[in-house]
């Protein structure tokens, strides 16, 4: 059968942003009307070839920056390839960004028309489908209210409902499947399966490897813009995961010093760790329920854009008691272009008296591998009488019923 999508030796080069090319008219005039010189170009994507048959679902996996989004844009026809060709048997539709054309002052119904036309339908076609779309979005009661009164979940449902009523022959999907509540997600997945049964070719980009392995027929794995692997989806995903693990081990600068369990690629590393008590002084012991600040000094070898830091408090046997990380706490760490210091101030640490250790980790932004994972980087003691069972020291008051006689005696 003729493939729905045929990609042959595709390549796309971007100019390096050197800061030299004139970005303003003034600069251009000042440079003597000279444009960007044939500046360095790097290939965001190169020598990529694959076919997608009608009814087939192809997963695209790879790290951030591997060229997945560039591939999607080229397939969508919104960017021009520098090499190779894309042949399509039908117009390409995208499930990329939902709600692109949504206007908050228009009603849900009006926005359906706008979004449907912007997604590639004729106005007449959207009007024919409007009832089905409203049904799918489960928004019948609110459909004539302005969209600004909708919750974000409702907006997403509306956007998705429009997008899945375009009846595509070739569909590009970028991550969006992870939105909405579970029931709605299931509905959308069912709808996509329906497309597939009708012969729609689908290209899915996802970080959820599980999803790629289970849903896609085949997968391609991109690394630094080139095809690293392709084949059955589960096999490709497995190969990708395997390489990620190997990479973390391989990158470890100093393999294992003694038996510390420290590992990491070493672009940035933990240079020191201090425990600061409530007086702001370095300490090795605190009292139960006292505040505690953990200060991590990070040394920079290569510059790193985004990164995450984890700090865990653990018992001596390694049982983690408190796990803190900058990602889930929503902390945006500045780029590592120089050595930096990160402090976590814990307002109170209600741990039983005893000895504790701190594990620190510096991680790749996608948690793909560790820059430096340093267990047992420091120790501290919570002072007091040791030897009790349990983990926590909860601040507490005792109140004991003294009996009526005592009660009366006290009242007199």
């Amino acid at each position, binding site marked *: 059968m003729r493939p729905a999508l045929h990609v042959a030796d595709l390549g796309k080069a971007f100019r390096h942003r050197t800061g030299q090319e004139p970005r303003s*008219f003034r600069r251009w005039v000042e440079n003597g009307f000279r444009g960007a010189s044939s500046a360095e170009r790097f290939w965001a994507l190169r020598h990529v070839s694959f076919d997608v048959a009608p009814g087939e679902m192809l997963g695209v996996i790879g790290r951030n920056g591997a060229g997945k989004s560039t591939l999607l844009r080229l397939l*969508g026809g919104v960017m021009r390839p520098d090499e190779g060709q894309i042949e399509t048997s039908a117009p390409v539709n995208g499930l990329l960004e939902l709600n692109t054309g949504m206007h908050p002052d228009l009603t849900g119904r009006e926005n359906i028309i706008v979004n449907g036309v912007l997604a590639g339908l004729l106005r007449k076609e959207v009007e024919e489908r409007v009832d089905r779309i409203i049904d799918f979005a489960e928004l019948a009661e609110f459909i004539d209210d302005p969209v600004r009164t909708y919750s974000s979940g409702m907006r997403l449902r509306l956007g998705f409902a429009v997008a899945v009523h375009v009846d595509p022959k070739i569909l590009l999907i970028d991550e969006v499947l992870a939105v909405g509540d579970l029931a709605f997600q299931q509905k959308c997945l069912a709808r996509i399966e329906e497309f597939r049964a009708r012969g729609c070719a689908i290209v899915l980009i996802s970080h959820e490897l599980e999803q790629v392995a289970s849903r896609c027929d085949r997968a391609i794995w991109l690394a630094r813009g080139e095809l690293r692997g392709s084949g059955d989806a589960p096999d490709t995903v497995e190969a990708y995961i395997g390489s990620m693990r190997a990479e973390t081990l391989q990158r470890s600068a100093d393999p294992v010093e003694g038996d510390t369990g420290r590992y990491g690629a070493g672009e940035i590393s933990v240079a020191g760790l201090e425990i600061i008590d409530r007086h702001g002084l370095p300490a090795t012991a605190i009292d139960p329920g006292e505040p505690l600040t953990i200060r991590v000094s990070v040394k920079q070898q290569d510059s790193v854009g985004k990164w995450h830091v984890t700090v865990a408090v653990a018992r001596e046997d390694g049982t983690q008691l408190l796990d803190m990380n900058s990602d889930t706490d929503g902390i945006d760490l500045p780029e590592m272009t120089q050595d930096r210091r990160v402090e976590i101030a814990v307002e109170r640490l209600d741990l039983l008296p005893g000895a504790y250790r701190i594990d620190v980790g510096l991680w790749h932004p996608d948690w793909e591998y560790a820059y430096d994972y340093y267990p047992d980087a420091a120790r501290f003691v919570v002072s007091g009488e040791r030897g009790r069972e349990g983990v926590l020291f909860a601040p507490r008051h005792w109140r004991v019923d003294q009996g009526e006689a005592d009660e009366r005696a006290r009242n007199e």
Partner: protein
Amino acid sequence: MSYRPTSQRSNLTIGLLSELRHLRDVIRVLVWRDQRGRYTTTLMGVVWAVAAPVLFLMTFYFLFTFVMPLAIPNYASHVFVGLVAWTWFQSTISESVGCIVGNQSLISQPRFPVAALPVASAMSNLLTLCLTLPVLMLVLLAEGSRAGLSLVTLPVILLCQLVVILAIAFLVAALNVRFRDLGYIVPILLQLFMFATPIFYDYAAVPDRARAVLALNPLVTLVQSYREVLILGEWPDWTALGLVFLGGMVVLVLTWRYFHAASADFLEEV
């Protein structure tokens, strides 16, 4: 190595006709969204559309009838016709400057015809122009306009102006993607253009030497033609209008081709 970049925008098998129909619908939807977003009710729409030119009209009328009399007959009509035509031009051009940069999510949508953005802006502002027509008619009637049969040429003049507007709109829209300071330069140029257009003064009173420069401004011919038709009830100067149309078409083809060529790289630059 095969080196044949193909763009799907031109590679659609569904054919040019349905692509054009889709383009038409996209423009309609964008205009509609723009208008609905601007005004919550039609009445308020008229009020707001009219408010700006009417305020300008009152200022100019006061200035040049009482403070510095210019002695132009039917001065209110004279100014208002010029202002309405100018407002269409000016609003569209200033909107077009940012229309690509400000709509990144739209231009990254497969099958979205990017060229619809400047066109939609021109059409939306034409609609706003239509909203001011009732007030324009009131002013014309109050001053005893002699408009008659030549009114049938009005659509032709509007078409000529649309060509001129689009020719410039495509250029600034595409150029601003590369040169971001165009957003600061264009308003200044527009201000210059406004004074180079006989809106509040009379072209007949301009000295010959200055006319040589002003004649390069296509808006001069357009504004004059509107006045001939709407105020004097005469036929427009077909030679001048024809030149504006042809010149506008030539420039439009060039700027559209530039826009089309540049549009493949919009996403890289935005």
